[in-house]
């Protein structure tokens, strides 16, 4: 195992920096994706800073408590945001040796992701409206069907490094870049791409900018949120997308990441590297979205079953075609 017990100050600084980067960068990622869509549609778009303006505005609006809701509705935005911030602190984005790295591996990160989903789903049910229930029901079905794919993809990724610890996986890929073009890795990448689309609620699974409630999945759960809570929920959604894109980027393109005991120069290089990677992945995702229509809801399990099969093939391929690592 590559992690060491000594925690350098710089690795703590790098962890704090990556949490702040995710906090500050998530609305920019969302804004950037909207801009890419706008430009491809021939429009001018609101600019990369539009989600930030919307967030600041929502923070200053009135706090609303709908009748009949409980503390679950009130706390869910904080739980989603908190779990996402924790994931941002655990996964290696800027440097490898996060102080929380031995505390949670990729299975733990997946579990925390689902904790956020469950919190929002319960909030949707707590509103007691028909749309809230509908959004919750659809969201939890997709979450239940995407979990086998995620865990099998984690399995496929952990085979080369013999570990599910994130730092171990990333450093194994960084030290042996040849296995990136192995069938197992490529299949795992495609499977994870579908997973990110489903978990973050992007096309073709869910349209984040739809106005038709009967086509909503994520939006339907948050129809009742207003003002600061809505800002937290939207921010948390953006952060989840950013963290998932950054994780995929570092799992498959780990170059530029600082080591477990980073030097003073390596930390800003790591920050720039992850920013470039996330921006590139977000741009690619947004461009693909322009060419896709939203799937009918009852076609989504077929898509997820297909991704499950890809992940299963990824594992079997990585068993039989893995280049041996030490």
């Amino acid at each position, binding site marked *: 195992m590559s992690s060491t017990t000594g925690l350098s100050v710089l690795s703590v600084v790098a962890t704090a920096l990556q949490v702040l980067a995710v906090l500050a960068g998530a609305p920019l990622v969302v804004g950037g994706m909207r801009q890419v869509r706008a430009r491809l549609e*021939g429009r001018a778009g609101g600019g990369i800073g539009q989600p930030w303006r919307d967030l600041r505005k929502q923070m200053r609006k009135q706090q609303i408590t709908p009748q009949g809701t409980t503390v679950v509705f009130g706390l869910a935005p904080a739980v989603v945001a908190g779990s996402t911030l924790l994931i941002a602190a655990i996964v290696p984005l800027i440097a490898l040796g996060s102080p929380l790295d031995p505390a949670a591996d990729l299975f733990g990160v997946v579990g925390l992701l689902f904790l956020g989903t469950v919190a929002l789903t319960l909030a949707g049910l707590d509103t007691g409206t028909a749309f809230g229930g509908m959004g919750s029901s659809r969201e939890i079905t997709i979450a239940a069907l995407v979990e086998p794919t995620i865990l099998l993809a984690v399995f496929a990724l952990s085979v080369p490094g013999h570990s599910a610890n994130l730092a171990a996986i990333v450093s194994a890929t960084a030290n042996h870049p040849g296995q990136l073009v192995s069938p197992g890795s490529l299949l795992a990448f495609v499977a994870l791409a579908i997973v990110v689309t489903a978990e973050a609620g992007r096309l073709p699974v869910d349209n984040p900018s739809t106005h038709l409630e009967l086509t909503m999945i994520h939006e339907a759960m948050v129809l009742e949120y207003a003002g600061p809570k809505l800002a937290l929920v939207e921010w948390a959604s953006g952060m989840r997308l950013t963290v998932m894109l950054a994780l995929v980027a570092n799992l498959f393109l780990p170059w530029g990441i600082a080591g477990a005991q980073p030097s003073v120069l390596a930390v800003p290089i790591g920050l720039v590297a992850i920013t470039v990677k996330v921006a590139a992945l977000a741009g690619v995702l947004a461009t693909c979205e322009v*060419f896709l229509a939203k799937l009918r809801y009852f076609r989504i399990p077929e898509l997820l079953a297909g991704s499950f099969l890809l992940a299963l093939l990824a594992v079997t391929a990585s068993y039989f075609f893995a280049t041996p690592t030490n």
Partner: protein
Amino acid sequence: MSWIGKIRRVGRIVEPADEAPEATAAPPTGVTGSLQLRHVDCGSCNGCELEISGAFSSVYDAERFGARVVASPRHADGLLATGVVTRNMQQPLFNTLNSIPEPRVVIAVGDCAINGGAFAKGYGVVGSVADVIPVDVEVPGCPPTPQQIITALRTVTGR
């Protein structure tokens, strides 16, 4: 894949932006460049709706000035009302307005919303939007052009 060629051929189709107008209403909450609107059709002939959808289309693109139409009034800070207020839509209009968190603005689009327009004397009509709820910004016209709508929105967003 022919779409890639089409995108490159068509290019940018949005009209160039005019000069920013004077602000007649302060942006709610004081943050410029961000206005989410919830549209309510109180009883219009849909002429204003077509112009509004034109205003938010690729040609006029109201989004570049920070305005966006949202599905839930809880997410909105402005009510975009069109048409005369019919008897059946009076209570829903109140409910929608009360569901929008403070601070909020009301924008009446079209002559019907301002003073009843062509349908002012109808038997199912309660009155114009201005008769029923306090209106902050008015956009006259039957229907107003997308440019006029955007200019009015820009007076609120400040961008």
